[in-house]
């Protein structure tokens, strides 16, 4: 489901990029296995299962078991990609993620599908908006939220060769592919989508293209907004955040997640230590009411106008 009616660029569901990339990688690296919880279909892994039935471990509806089994598979030399709806993967198996993956230090790739509020009307149990706050506290885990199909594929390729636990927070929401000349994906390094001097909008995942739209609205008002794609929320690119604080004097964070403890929280921790500036956090305040993705994005300001308005407030607060 598209989130921005205003966008006319073609929109892509990143699940295809995830599944095709993983299949290609698995064809040349037989250590790659997937571990799922009755989630073959919802993870787009039907093709993987047909090609590599022996490397598809479906433990059934049992997420704690799923993550523990993945840690064991890593012990055995496999490279497990655990793929499940991120709400159940992170909330249900949190202790397995903490103890068996992060603390024990196993090379497990956790792939959260349909994260954020992709499940819309299915409600708060099925939303995964607390995951940034939970996962980024576990130091050994690299936490990445790709913003489009290209970045999804790059992140999957990187995770496969990286030695260490990774959380890939994927979405099934349709987003445009963002174009940058000579684009490369470097985990831990923010991607600059637009330069600017009055305010910096830091976004990730499904909200990056909305941040770019907001910057266009602001430009029409004579406001120069920098836009950073902070695809890696842990470890955070503190250099880029501090530079943004020093050079633009105001920051807006945007995330399809709780407005506490996630990207906005991480940026606040950083700037409060390096260069405090006004910071407006756009995100969700708590458990969401019933509603479609589009209506909830609109209601909670994850939109061109909502983000632009947060930027105006941040700029007004400068020197206050």
């Amino acid at each position, binding site marked *: 489901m598209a989130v921005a009616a205003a966008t006319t660029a073609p929109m892509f569901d990143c699940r295809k990029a995830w599944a095709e990339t993983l299949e290609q990688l698995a064809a040349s690296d037989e250590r790659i296995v997937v571990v799922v919880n*009755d*989630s*073959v*279909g*919802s993870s787009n892994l039907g093709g993987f299962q047909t090609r590599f039935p022996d490397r598809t471990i*479906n*433990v*059934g*509806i*049992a997420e*704690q*078991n799923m993550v523990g089994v993945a840690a064991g598979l890593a012990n055995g030399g496999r490279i497990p990609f655990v793929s499940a709806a991120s*709400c*159940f993967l992170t*909330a*249900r198996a949190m202790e397995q993620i903490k103890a068996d993956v992060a603390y024990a230090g196993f090379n497990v790739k956790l792939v959260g599908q349909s994260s954020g509020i992709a*499940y*819309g*009307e*299915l*409600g*708060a*149990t*099925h939303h995964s908006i607390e995951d940034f706050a939970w996962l980024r506290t576990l130091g050994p885990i690299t936490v990445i939220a790709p913003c489009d199909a290209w970045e999804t594929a790059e992140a999957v390729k990187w995770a496969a060769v990286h030695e260490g636990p990774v959380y890939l927070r994927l979405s099934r929401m349709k987003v445009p592919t963002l174009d940058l000349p000579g684009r490369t994906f470097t985990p831990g390094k923010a991607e600059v989508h637009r330069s600017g001097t009055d305010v910096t909008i830091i976004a990730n995942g499904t909200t990056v293209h909305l941040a770019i739209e907001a910057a266009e609205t602001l430009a029409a008002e004579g406001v120069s907004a920098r836009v950073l794609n902070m695809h890696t929320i842990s470890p955070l690119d503190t250099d880029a955040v501090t530079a943004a604080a020093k050079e633009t004097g105001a920051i807006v964070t945007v995330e399809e997640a709780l407005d506490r403890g996630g990207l906005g929280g991480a940026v606040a921790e950083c700037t409060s230590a390096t260069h405090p500036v006004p910071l407006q956090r756009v995100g969700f305040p708590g458990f969401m*009411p*019933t*509603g*479609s993705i589009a*209506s909830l994005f609109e209601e909670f300001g994850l939109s061109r106008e909502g983000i632009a308005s947060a930027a105006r407030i941040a700029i007004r607060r400068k020197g206050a």
Partner: protein
Amino acid sequence: MTHALKTDNSDALIRDKALWMRQQAMKMVYAKQLGHLGGDFSAIDVLATLYFGVLRYDTARPEWAERDRFVMSKGHATGALYTALCAAGYFPEDWLDTYMGHHSKLNGHPNRQYLPGVETNTGPLGHGFPVALGIAISGQITGADYRTYVLTGDGEQQEGSNWEAAMTAGSRKVKNLTLIIDRNRLQQGARTEDTNGLDPLDDKYRAFGWHVVEIDGHDYAQLLDTLGAPVADREKPLCVIANTVKGKGVSFMEDQAKWHHGVPNAEQFAQAMKELV
């Protein structure tokens, strides 16, 4: 409205209510193009039996301390739960039209803070059973005579939390608790036995200290007898394995994995409504 014991007329009443529930669930899911009809239709006969032949409740007093409790652990089957609560009189029929709408009380998964008659929030599988166990233990401690019923899916039984609850209930002899397993043999993506096999489910529960009865989950007489059996006649918790058909009542939906969360198009909707008479 208060319902209590079964009457000579229960069978016919339940049949009528179950038909109405299937029709309404079909309309709601068709209108919203979202929902879980397969699991709604396998469970509807169980819910209709509970609300119109077994449970003691008063819709005017949803918090009545003496009410029998029903916990819908397979929370995705809101087409079954919401139509049952509506049929029972907990809320007016026009609320069904708001199913999954903006700020609707009829969320995609049940929320006790939105709707009367919902005992606890469910949606993530494997939560309802431990909560129901707590409700039953509370009754055991205080000597209250209410009964607690919980319905889980069969795929749902793969969650370890169920087995932790099963062990506690068996060990504590929580005999006022009845677990009903909707044994439709399908989960989201495939058959249960092709995913993470459950059989022999009856032996497993027996080994955990439960009475186990296996019945046809679409047969009202068997459902009434089993679910209405007096608690005083047993020493252990009761596990009812209700053999059901996912999508029961609509020919093209029956026993098909794709109707777990498949939604009907206009033609399928018309065909389904023709069959639901």
